[in-house]
């Protein structure tokens, strides 16, 4: 671990659960924090759209009711990704990642638009399926090495986690972080509310970055 994410600055222990801060995880944590604060303070934008076949344009408004729910989901998503990037326990990591998946669905699902809801549902199916490899990966790591602590796994005192388990973990994270790929289908961007939609991409990005570190050290 000393060479990958940098030496840990600080390890916070709650019994066998632990949270550690290396330069890498701290950077990710700060980024999650910054964007969560942005989601907290900024009002959603009003998307300008042209009516098809005419010269008319109009700006979409977001209702307060909808906004409240989506903002809550965006903040929950930010908190979940903060948890995912700093946690030192593999199973907690998978739980936080699963939480990111749920909240990502929540952020877009509040929009009353058939296309958006369809995209959210399909994404939700993928995210739900992805919990299988995610938990299975963590389970196999626990079975083969006898520990779930990333610090212990990185220290080299326990056997290395099998390649299969690491591949399962990656697969799970890819599935949970699918939202931006659905975004590429442009359906999700019919949903106004940039500060919240951006949280989808950010959280998936952060869990990708974190799992890259995790599979390298365990």
């Amino acid at each position, binding site marked *: 671990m000393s060479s990958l994410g940098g030496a840990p600055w600080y390890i916070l222990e709650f019994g066998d659960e632990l949270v550690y801060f290396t330069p890498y995880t701290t950077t990710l944590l700060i980024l999650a924090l910054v964007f969560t604060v942005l989601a907290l303070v900024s009002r959603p934008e009003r998307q300008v759209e042209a009516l098809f076949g005419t010269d008319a344009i109009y700006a979409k408004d977001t209702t307060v009711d909808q906004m409240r729910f989506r903002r809550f989901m965006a903040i929950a998503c930010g908190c979940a990704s903060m948890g995912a990037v700093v946690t030192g326990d593999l*199973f907690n990591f998978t739980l936080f990642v699963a939480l990111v998946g749920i909240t990502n669905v929540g952020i877009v699902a509040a929009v009353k638009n058939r296309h958006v809801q369809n995209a959210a549902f399909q994404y939700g199916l993928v995210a739900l399926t992805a919990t299988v490899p995610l938990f299975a990966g963590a389970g196999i790591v626990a079975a083969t090495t006898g520990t779930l602590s990333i610090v212990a796994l990185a220290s080299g005192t326990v056997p290395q986690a099998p390649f299969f388990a690491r591949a399962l973990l990656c697969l799970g994270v890819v599935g949970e972080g699918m939202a931006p790929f659905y975004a590429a289908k442009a359906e999700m961007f019919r949903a106004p509310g940039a500060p919240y939609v951006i949280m989808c991409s950010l959280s998936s990005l952060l869990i990708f970055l974190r799992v890259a570190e995790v599979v390298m050290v365990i």
Partner: protein
Amino acid sequence: MIWQEYSVGLLVVLACGIVAFVALLLEWDDLHRLLLIDLVEIPSLGVIALLGTDLAEALILPGLVVGIAELLALSQIYLHKEGIADRKVSGLNIEVISKADAPVIISVILIVYGIVLSGFTGGGIAGLGIVFFFMARGAKEHFSLLEMASGVSWALWIAAFFVFMVLPQYWFLALMGAAIGILLKVTVKMALVGMMWGRPDE
């Protein structure tokens, strides 16, 4: 060796997973896919369960909760997506069940057995009894009251953990507190699930 037994179980679980995933690939109806995915989730918990230790039990619970949460969220989206959110639903509307004494007896047996077991498993079983009762009778209870009871018992559970950490000499008290807290909490939570048949007043 343990690893060999484990790997046999692992193969079985993986076979289940592969069968479920193939079914998922062949199925195009959204609702059926949702149901299939719930089936797929069970093997993943199976992998953890194969650890066969106390740790496994501790790990399965959050996994299960996350799975259920995602399933509930997706069903809600499905209802909205298909525009059937406002369709009227009213319990299991079967005359035989709603008039017979059997549901009451079965519920009472389940609840008593659950209380004897105590802890999470007991809560699950007692809750199942209440779910069954509500489903059979279509009863309307005070939703917020049940929610409050659930919250208070959860607080009891957490308080018991603090006793473990701060005053370990009172471990027996804390153990009982935690067991009863979780029993009540799970029971009430499951009862709430049993009552979730849409909101008749909306």
